[in-house]
């Protein structure tokens, strides 16, 4: 995984609550066998009509938002299915960070496994950004855990382990494999094969 570097971009404001992963990536696109190539299906049903034509009013289809790498959302983003395809689509589309009030647990985890930073801010701050700052650059500094927009600086919380994984681009499995002795001891003491 690539390490996360500091980010500066205007946001793509997706002003909808309770966005579920069925919307982020509809099921007909879960049949691919790889992790890439999902970007073109991101928010497919909101983005395209029945004939596959881009809907002119959906935010991802507006040229002024093109190339922006921060997705601005609201409450309860990523609810529903555990499909990691949702994060692969967001990443493949070009987003590097998501800003919002709250996120579903599995979705939140999945983001960090793929190098996507998720930043939670209080509702009044998110409201303020939606209202006044959607055309301003947002600077995300992961090391110092700050977000800067104009002269506003917000601090955000992040689990220290997730943060270091993101900063170093760690492969989590190789870290865990260093605990081989502990895992083996657990297996000897507990016999997880309790059938028969």
């Amino acid at each position, binding site marked *: 995984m690539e390490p996360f570097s500091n980010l500066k971009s205007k946001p793509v404001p997706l002003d909808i609550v309770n966005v579920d992963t069925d919307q982020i990536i509809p*099921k*007909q696109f879960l*049949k691919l*066998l790889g992790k890439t190539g999902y970007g073109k299906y991101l928010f497919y049903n909101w983005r395209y009509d029945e004939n596959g034509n881009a809907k002119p009013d959906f935010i991802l289809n507006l040229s002024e938002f093109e190339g922006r790498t921060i997705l601005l959302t609201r409450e309860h983003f990523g609810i529903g299915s*555990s499909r990691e395809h949702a994060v692969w689509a967001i990443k493949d589309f070009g987003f590097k960070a998501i800003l919002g009030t709250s996120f579903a647990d599995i979705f939140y985890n999945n983001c960090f*496994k793929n190098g996507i930073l998720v930043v939670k801010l209080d509702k009044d701050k998110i409201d303020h950004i939606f209202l006044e700052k959607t055309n301003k650059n947002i600077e995300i500094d992961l090391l110092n855990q700050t977000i800067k927009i104009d002269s506003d600086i917000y601090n955000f919380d992040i689990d220290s382990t997730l943060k270091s994984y993101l900063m170093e681009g760690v492969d989590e499995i190789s870290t865990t494999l260093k605990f081989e002795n502990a*895992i083996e001891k657990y297996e000897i003491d*507990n016999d997880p094969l*309790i059938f028969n």
Partner: protein
Amino acid sequence: MLKTVYDKIWDNHLVYSYDDKHPSLIYIDRHFIHEVTSPQAFDGLRMYNRKVRKPALTFATVDHNVPTTNRSLPMVDEISSLQIKTLQKNCQDFGITLFDINDQYQGIVHVIGPELGLTLPGTTIVCGDSHTSTHGAFGALAFGIGTSEVEHVLATQCLWMKKAKNFEIILNNTLKNDLAISAKDVILSIIKNIGTSGGSGSVIEYRGSFISNLSMEKRMTICNMSIEAGARAGLVSPDEVTFNYLRDKPYSPKNESFERLLNEWRELRSDNNAKYDQSILLNVDNVIPQVTWGTNPAMTIDVTSTIPNPDEYAKGNEEEKKSAVRALEYMDLIPGIPITDISIDRVFIGSCTNARLEDLIEASIIVKDKKVSPNVKAMVVPGSQQVKLSAEKLGLDTIFMNAGFEWRESGCSMCLGMNPDILSPGERCASTSNRNFEGRQGTGGRTHLVSPVMAAAAAIVGKFVDVREWI
């Protein structure tokens, strides 16, 4: 220290722990995999030349995109077929047991785990599927994971996790539960009350007199939809109902092993006065049949109610109001209309929420000697081959088919429509599944979540009806 059942399972599975502030390494006892969320995980293993650490603890089946029509015919959908073949190859290469498409034990992963006796009290269970919470009904800690975590569990049989909060939901009742008030209605009204993120960051433990008297299958329905309330997992302390269910299941421990485990399992209940971070109480006597009207499972009303107006629904929250407006538009509904005035086109009885034997028996009582409305296309998709077989032994297939239902092979089917079973744009469906998200059952399709008996009655009348009048 007094502990909840979740605390006990957690402590029993700690492989390595720094402190409460950091994630701990947790051992995983059972790993279920299926064709849709696993291929990339096996790719990852191959890329790093890694093995599956404990192939004997991993079980696979095909459920999400399998056809539910005659399986002796070749699959039409080539991409789905490739996903299935990929799983077959992965299981073969890595030595994993697969209940394949023509296996007697094939079925929806959350239906077969319990019925095979793979799901046991006190275990940790994961699957690349959010409804893994179903297995919590056995007093297991069971939760959905993403594909990266599937790969992590395959390689290490462990996961890094932070401990969740304890959330207790006490469900009491004084009246006898009759057929009309189902586990589905209870969980839908819980989600209506606490919202789609009410359980966020928590493991919900369901307790109280209602739960104690509930069968295993109905406890599964409740735990299944915990994820719809945003919870990490849902569970019920195991008791004699659980133990009796598990005796004699194909993979259950046998004889002395079973008796030895019984002693451990009997300790697996929350201590009296154990501390919960959050607690709510619901009197189940007041719950009546529920129908969802919107595009998330919290958008639910009593069958006696009318479609709410967005202001009334949102209670002052501007974004929720917008979301309700959007939902009404998508669902093509107008506030103020009784839900029983709404006609439906399709009925789906199936999914890991409501496609077990008891669900089918109850629905069959409603449809027996009646006919499906001429305007409705209705289908029953049993949760597993074992459910299908048991139902056929009871003659349920004949009851459903005589009424005009289609009787299918087992799988996820129209719960998410990855196979050919989908709604057409604009079609309205009474569904016993768990998600009514936009397009979930087919692009442009409109889903109303209900219990099996409510779905059965709706099939007959062609509209939602208060099934209590029929019982």
